[in-house]
Every structure is written in C-alpha cells, then in structure tokens.
C-alpha cells in the first residue's frame, strides 16, 4: 500500500504567541515549530500499516524552508521519502483551506497513492477541513476522526469516533483519505539509526502553483476578551492554598 501522510508544521504548544504589528498574523521570527500533533498520529498509523501490510510511506508538507526539519523528523521515524511543496510563509497566509488543499492535491495526484492520512485538525488554525476538502478535490471517499485502521480485501475497515464516547466501524474502498484522531496509537521516537538513515532518504521539492484568490479571509488576530473576571491569587504555595480554601468556603461554598 502506498500511503501519503500530509503533515503541517505548527508553533509548539508552549510557544509564547505574540500578535504581529499589523494584527494580521503572529510574530513568526523567534517561534519554535513542531509537527502538528494529530499529524504525528497520522504518521504513526501509516508506519504501522506499512509494517503490517508492506508498501511505502511518503510524507508531504507545504510551507517555507523551515518545514523540511519536520519532514526530516518524519523520515527519521521511518517514512521512506518526503515531498516538500515550497511556498513562502506570506504566500501560505494568502491561501484559504481550498487553496491549500488544491496545492496538496496537485502533489498527491502525481503519486497516485492508495491511502492518504492526515491529522483531524491543526493546532494553529484548527479549521479541521483540509483532509475532507482534499478528498473532495481528489474525488475519493473519506472518513474523519479515525482511531484505528485495518486493511481488508475490499479496502479498509476503520474505527470512527462519534460524540459522547460512541464509535462506529466504517468499511470503505481504496483509494481513500482518512483524518486521524490523536491517541489511537502510541507515538514512536526516532532512533539514532533512524536519524542516520534519514540523511540518505529523498526529499523532493516541488514549487507551489500561484494562489488563485480566496473564498474566506483571515482579517485580524487579537487576544480574546476575558469571558469572566478572573481573580488571580498570588503568594507562596502555603499562602495560595490558604486563599483557595477561603474561596472554597465562602465564594464557591463547597467546604
């Protein structure tokens, strides 16, 4: 099975986020980036499918030069080769989900994979749509929020998460696209051997086609207004504990 994993590079979870001067995006200069967490689970699922069924795992990411570090990490974990769709950060911001999916679809068509995996949403924009839009553009079936994937004679049997602790199995033909939920597998670390081997693996760079306008635009980013007035408690741990007990007794009234 030939599997493509579409990966996004996002700011690290603990990164200090500052709004850029024009308020159109965040300051990117000193930001530390990492793989989008649900995409890490998509990669893990792909590697396990390959171990069970054979085949090839190709990682794909669109973005500026910095995304090659995330692709290299994926190669070190066991992906066979990488495709980097090169597009400047500013250009990327000028594309909506449809524009980004169209760019990825072009790179994917050239490979004719059996299966495309990606995370169910990104930790930065959180639109949760690129996978589904990609499937629609490629004309292939999709399933979202997937916890488990099994290869069958006819195609795939996947476990899909529903709301409130419910699940269902879905059978589907190949080629197909799945968006993967976090937590279905345990993530692996890159081994020293893996890191060494990654240096010999191919990363193909392809240029992105020009942007063609957007259906939705991000106009402004800003710090959210507080929904509640939060009273911050300060002091030594013992002092804070004493203040909290006061609140529990007289404000929240649970003691």
């Amino acid at each position, binding site marked *: 099975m030939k599997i493509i994993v579409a990966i996004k590079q996002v700011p690290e979870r603990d990164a200090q986020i500052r709004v850029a001067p024009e308020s159109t995006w965040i300051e990117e200069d000193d930001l530390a980036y990492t793989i989008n967490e649900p995409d890490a689970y998509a990669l893990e699922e792909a590697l396990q499918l390959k171990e069970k069924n054979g085949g090839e795992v190709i990682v794909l990411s669109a973005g500026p030069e910095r995304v090659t570090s995330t692709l290299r990490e994926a190669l070190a974990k066991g992906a066979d080769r990488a495709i980097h769709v090169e597009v400047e950060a500013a250009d990327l911001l000028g594309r909506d989900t449809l524009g980004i999916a169209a760019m990825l679809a072009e790179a994917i068509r050239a490979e004719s994979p059996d299966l495309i995996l990606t995370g169910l949403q990104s930790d930065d924009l959180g639109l949760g749509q690129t996978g589904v839009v990609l499937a629609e553009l490629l004309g292939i079936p999709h399933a979202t929020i997937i916890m488990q994937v099994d290869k069958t004679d006819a195609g795939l049997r996947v476990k899909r998460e529903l709301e409130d602790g419910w699940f269902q199995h879905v059978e589907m033909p190949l080629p197909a696209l799945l968006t993967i939920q976090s937590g279905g597998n345990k993530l692996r670390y890159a081994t020293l051997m893996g890191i060494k081997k990654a240096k010999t693996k191919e990363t193909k760079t392809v240029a992105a086609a020009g942007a063609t306008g957007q259906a939705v635009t991000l106009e402004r980013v800003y710090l959210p207004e507080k929904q509640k007035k939060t009273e*911050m408690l300060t002091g030594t741990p013992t002092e*804070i*504990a004493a203040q909290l007990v006061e609140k529990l007794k007289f404000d929240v009234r649970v003691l």
Partner: protein
Amino acid sequence: MSGVLVVLEQHGGVWNRMSFEALAAGQKMAAALGVGCSAAVLGASVSGLAQELTGKKLEKVYAAEHALIEPYTADATVTALEQLVKQVGPDFVLFPHTYQVRDFAPALATRFKQVLVSDVIAIHAEVEGGPVFVRQLLQGKLNADYRMTAGGPGFLSVQAGTFRGDAVEAGSAAVEAFAVTLDAAQIRNKPGEPFRESAQTVDLSSAPVIVSVGRGIGEQENIPLVQELADALGAELAASRPICDNGWLPMERQVGSSGQTVSPKLYLAVGISGAIQHLVGMKGSKAVIAINKDENAPIFEVADFGVVGDMFEIVPELTKAVLAAKG
C-alpha cells in the same frame, strides 16, 4: 430565498441538542441582517421532526427525505444538501459544529467553491462589508476575525455552547417537503452500527465537585497527587483528553467534546491549558479554579480564580489546607 438556512442534525428521529443552538444563532444572524431564517432537516423520514419546528420563528422548514440518507454517510448528505442549497439559494448555510458536520460540511462547501468557516464563536452581522465571523486560533490563545469574500452561499458552523438552544424564538412556519435524488451507487462508505467501548460507570455530569487534570501533570506517577486533592474535596477526578489518550486515567473520566459534558458547582482545573475541545465540555461549570504554570493559558479566560505557579508545590499544600479546614 435569500437569508439564512440552518441545517439541523438528527439521528434516528432524535435531535442532536446542538441543533437548537444553531437555530438560535441563525435566527439572531438573520434578524441582524434583516433577512429571513429557514431550517432544514434531513433523513429517511423526518416529517414528524419537521412538524416540531412549525412553532418556531422561521420562514420555512424544509424536510429533505430519502431512504439512503440514513444511516449517515458523507456522500449521501453532501449530495442531498447540494441539491437543497441549489434549490433554496440561501446567502448563508449555518450548521452546529458537530462531529458529523465536521465530516461532510467541508466537502459540501467545496462543491460550491466555498470554504466552511468552522467552529464560530461570534457573528458580527451588522459591520460594514458583510458579517465578520470570530474563531479561536492556537488552542484558544487568540481570536481571529474571518470574512467570506466569494459571494454566496457562505457556509459556517457554530461552536457548542456559544448560543443558547433555549433562546430559539417562537413563531410559526410551514413545512415544505424536498425530494432528494440519490442513487445507492453514489454512496461509497458502508457505516456500521454505533457502539460504546464499555458501559459508562462514571457519571461526571452529576458530580457537584470535579478536580480535573491535564498535560501539566507530566507523567502517570504524579496522578496520585491530584487524586489526593480530589479525595480531600470529595470530588470526582476527571481529565483532559491527552491524559486519557496516554491511558493514565480511563476514557470515561474525560471531559470535553469527545468525552463528557459537565456543569459542577466547582471545576478545579490542574495543569489544563484549556484547549477549545476541553472548554466546550466544562464551560457550564458554576465556578472554575485554574492552576497552571502558563499565565497565558486559555483556561484562565473561563476561570473565576486563577493561580499561576507550579502545581507540584501548590496542590499538596492545597490538599493539606482542605483537610485541615474540614477538621
């Protein structure tokens, strides 16, 4: 029509409760724009459900029926809604941001060369140049204003708990049946029956006090630290998704969009940053206390009392103080 079309969600004749939040959002948006609001319900047989909407303030209720719409598949739903939206011609199509909507609405929008503005938390309909839609970015650390620029129809979904389902305005509406054209060959996926992993034995929704733990706990060995605080308070122990994903606490103790929705008297969040998926499960709590090392953690936006600091120092002190206070 022009105006706003709200697509409600039902499973086997039972409404998804978020449907009415979407309906309230649609009515409010339509009123601000000075246009009409209609509703649509899809399924194998939905005339009964459609009748329930005739007492709401709506221009029309569309009952879109076909045997192949249920059980749910994205293929059938996208095809049915594509036909309905083309026929009805709304300016905006509004959904509740459910797991099912996440599965099909992006594909539906793509068929109209549009992009769904998903998980919207506010709609500013009266500003110049068309409505502005507010979404959260970076796990809730920032808000962002979005606009639709491609002309109609625009597609959006509203976040759980953002609009009040009981705010739906009463009125009267006529039902219009809409015949969907579908062929079994158009449906590529075969869905199985929904199931649960194990019987839910922990009902967090009725717990008056909840101590909840997140990534900040670091490792499984530290869980007893918060368990002791929960025990001291007589509270149920709950967790955010990553803790349950790691198997440190059972899945049935998870609070958030994929777990339980709770509204206790006190929700004490320890080491929880407050990602949107978690907040939707607990923002109905009467009081929230948050302890987190990051002063910018979004959990503080919904907290009544906040402590920025090291949970490993503060939690044991708090447990001691609570036990002392109880005597």
